[in-house]
């Protein structure tokens, strides 16, 4: 059999029926894939999507027909939550030039984790801005590199993060820590969801 996959991996349960998404956003090298690997039941996989966008305001000499095609690579892993539900974790590039990817590729996501490195906080501004714009619920997790010297409060201030957005420390290499990050996000979503259901009922 022709195969480019390198090893067999655990198949999903035959009863698996509901795919869910959580997106981990962050700048280059902040530890997105490390975070996925820490909790994924499969070794993280990588694939890509080709996106075409109208070339409005795009300064690209190759855009001869007024459109540019961009290839975006991303990593992902998965967690089988129960017999039916499978949670996919996507490591998404947070850079500005991928703004048009947000809407399409990761639509329907439960929520997002913005993974930040205190040495490069500015890398996260754009991602946070896009998430707020799209009204995608998110939390911020500081990947606590050994030399992190800023207090968590100063990080909140530097990111102009509203008080109701959870901000926590984590170690992206550590399974228990990453599990706690995901639980914090879903707790946050749960609180938002029950609050809205209370208002609408």
């Amino acid at each position, binding site marked *: 059999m022709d195969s*480019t*996959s390198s090893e067999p991996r655990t198949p999903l349960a035959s009863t*698996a029926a509901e795919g869910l998404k959580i997106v981990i956003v962050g700048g280059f090298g902040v530890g997105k894939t490390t975070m996925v690997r820490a909790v994924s039941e499969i070794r993280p996989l990588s694939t890509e999507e080709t996106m075409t966008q109208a070339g409005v305001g795009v300064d690209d000499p190759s855009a001869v027909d007024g459109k540019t095609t961009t290839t975006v690579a991303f990593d992902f892993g*998965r967690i089988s939550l129960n017999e039916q*539900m499978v949670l996919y974790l996507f490591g998404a590039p947070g850079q500005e030039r991928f703004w048009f990817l947000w809407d399409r590729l990761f639509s329907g996501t439960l929520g997002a984790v913005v993974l930040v490195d205190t040495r490069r906080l500015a890398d996260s501004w754009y991602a946070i801005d896009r998430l707020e714009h799209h009204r995608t619920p998110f939390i911020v997790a500081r990947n606590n590199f050994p030399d992190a010297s800023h207090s968590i409060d100063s990080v909140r201030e530097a990111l102009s993060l509203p008080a109701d957005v959870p901000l926590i420390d984590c170690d992206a290499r550590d399974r228990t820590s990453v599990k706690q990050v995901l639980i914090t996000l879903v707790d946050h979503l749960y609180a938002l969801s*029950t609050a809205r259901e209370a208002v609408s009922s």
Partner: protein
Amino acid sequence: MIRRELDNEEPDRLYTVTRGRSLADEPDLDLVTLVVAAAEPAPGMQSEHARILRVCRTPVALVELSADLGMPVGVVKILLSDLLRANKITARHPSSSTRARTQLPDAATLKKVLVGLHKL
């Protein structure tokens, strides 16, 4: 981890695979749509279609197929659309596809997600 160099993929091959059809978004197919084969690969079938049917004997998410086949998500969507139209596969769509984009998932779903995460 090992990264396959998709960038080195010959565009001609992907063009052939989709018979030149464009990468138009297939709105019904999400990255996490789960695909299950409903037929065995048959002789004469396009090799990519046959391969998908072999991989999908148990449910497989579209995005995993994309990684397995070493093809962009958009190309895999086109291949899966072919198989869906021919009733060779069934698709289990995420319930998020019927949700408005600013609408949160319901509390009952989130509760199940939390239970699953706590078990990790």
